[in-house]
């Protein structure tokens, strides 16, 4: 087991290195002069030179990459072009809202989607199943910001049940924190619920066809036990896998959700950075998010042994 963990950890190293190399190299591969594009249309030649120097574009690629990756390895993601603050500090300040939003969405999605998928598989081809599948198609098709504005319009503006926008730190109390996050989490959860429900249903359908399920039924095990003990347990691995893969959707969706609901998180930081073309910040956010994504999926790989004792490494 320990050997597996170490091997698996080592396997993520080339992936992370590639991400770093890719994000870094974009500055050099991009068509045109990135310093001029970052500086904007009104910039003077001196401004462009200043940005070129701060990005290190005036020095050779290999030297610059060696320097940069050495710094990144030490946790230094560079300095923002516009605020002159360290990127790690900027990201650190924005972490809490984004993590809150993502965790709440994750919990909400799993709690809603798995029962949905199970019931759809159980009542396959019934109206419940059709409704779940229709919901899944809608969930994939309706853009995050559309859902966000719609929910905010109905529940915040018209019914006045919840705050329209903003974020309250957890330190100021759980209830205000939760109130601000309910609408954004539902917004972000929609596509994730669609994804998880669909995979849960598909996996459950396959398992309900198995001999041991028929045997369980034949010996008089109740429907609930067949569904949740015999079947869902065996469906755990594919479902958990898709939960992990879907985190990429969550990260992407958070960028939009945070802009719609004015949440000062990482997504908001990215959007502000893109408007100012603050590449070091974008580079930092992409690196951190990819790292989180890779680590989440690593943890999920490791969790297989707990969920399914047949899997041994």
């Amino acid at each position, binding site marked *: 087991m320990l050997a597996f963990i170490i091997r698996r950890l080592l396997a993520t190293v080339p992936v992370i290195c590639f991400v770093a190399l890719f994000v870094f190299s974009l500055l050099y591969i991009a068509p045109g002069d990135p310093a001029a594009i970052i500086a904007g249309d009104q910039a003077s030649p001196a401004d462009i030179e200043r940005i070129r120097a701060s990005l290190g574009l005036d020095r050779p690629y290999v030297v610059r990459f060696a320097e940069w990756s050495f710094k990144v390895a030490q946790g230094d993601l560079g300095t923002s072009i516009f605020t002159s603050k360290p990127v790690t500090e900027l990201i650190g300040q924005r972490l809490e809202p984004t993590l809150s939003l993502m965790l709440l969405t994750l919990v909400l999605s799993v709690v809603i989607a798995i029962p949905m998928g199970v019931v759809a598989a159980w009542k396959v081809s019934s109206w419940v199943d059709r409704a779940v599948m229709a919901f899944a198609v809608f969930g994939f098709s309706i853009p995050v910001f559309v859902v966000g504005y719609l929910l905010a319009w109905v529940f915040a503006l018209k019914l006045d049940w919840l705050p329209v926008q903003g974020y309250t730190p957890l330190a100021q109390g759980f209830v205000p924190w939760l109130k601000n996050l309910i609408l954004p989490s539902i917004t972000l959860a929609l596509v994730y619920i669609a994804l998880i429900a669909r995979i849960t249903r598909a996996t459950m359908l396959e398992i309900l066809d198995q001999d041991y399920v028929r045997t369980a039924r034949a010996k008089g095990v109740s429907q609930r036990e067949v569904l949740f003990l015999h079947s869902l347990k065996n469906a755990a691995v594919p479902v958990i896998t898709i939960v992990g893969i879907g985190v990429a959707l969550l990260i*992407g969706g958070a960028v939009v959700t945070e802009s719609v609901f004015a949440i000062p998180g990482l997504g908001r930081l990215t959007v502000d950075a893109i408007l100012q073309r603050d590449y070091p910040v974008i580079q930092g956010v992409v690196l951190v998010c990819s790292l989180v994504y890779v680590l989440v999926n690593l943890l999920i790989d490791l969790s297989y042994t707990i969920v399914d004792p047949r899997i041994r490494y």
Partner: protein
Amino acid sequence: MTLHLSSELPLEARPSHGARFLRYLRRHPSVAVGGGLLIAIVLLGALAPLWGTVDPTAISPTRRTRLPSEANWFGTDLLGRDVYSRVVYGARVSVTVGFSVAILASVMGLAVGLCAGFLRWADGVIMRVIDGMMSIPPILLAIALMALTRGSIGNVIIAVTIAEIPRVARLVRGVVLSLREQPYVEAAISNGARAPRIVMKHILPNTIAPMTVQATYICASAMLIEAILSFIGAGVPPSTPSWGNIMAEGRALWQVKPHIILFPAVLLSITVLAVNLLGDGLRDSLDPRIAKRL
């Protein structure tokens, strides 16, 4: 599954292409509905000047943020531009980006996937690169690319294509790997068939079905990413109306004038829904084995 045998009986006259197509559509209503809606959206954008639109960029400061009326069906935006005309012209951007990315990502992903599946020595390197790219959430990857280029439809297409290629490549590689173990492919190899011939005769025909389905999903995903990029200001420049940037412009006033956001939002949702329905329908009809499960 076995109920359709009767139509294949030799006694019956072979139905014409048209009749067979109609029967296919009847059997797969989501292809009919999705495809029909998509054709409607394509026509909407392609023939934009015919649908009673005015110049979508014409500013009229005296008629700003009007509600929908007879003169301006969808109202006007902050600069007094006609939202209806902008939304109709905006269909061009979504359709162009969606279709271009679907085609480009399929072709390039096919090439990469075939290389990975066929050239054993290249497989390791290609797959590590693909793993690396797939560990960057697609929207962030597109954002990073757009941060370094000027906003234009062409650049959006390139950025989203790069973000989508790994998915196709992975799919194609999987198909190649499973096919090369098939007895008929092994037979072809032992008969001395060269790699290009095997690819053309045995591999490519088998990738067409899964790739068509994948291409529709990529089209839907590209339309969504384009809208998101334009919405956050990193996509199509404001001078070209796109559903994403119309919504971005309506954002400041959404609490009082929601109509500016509403119309592009509804059209974008319908379009993506149409493409997804088409994809689901094609998947079900091309591969009856998964049809039962998914």
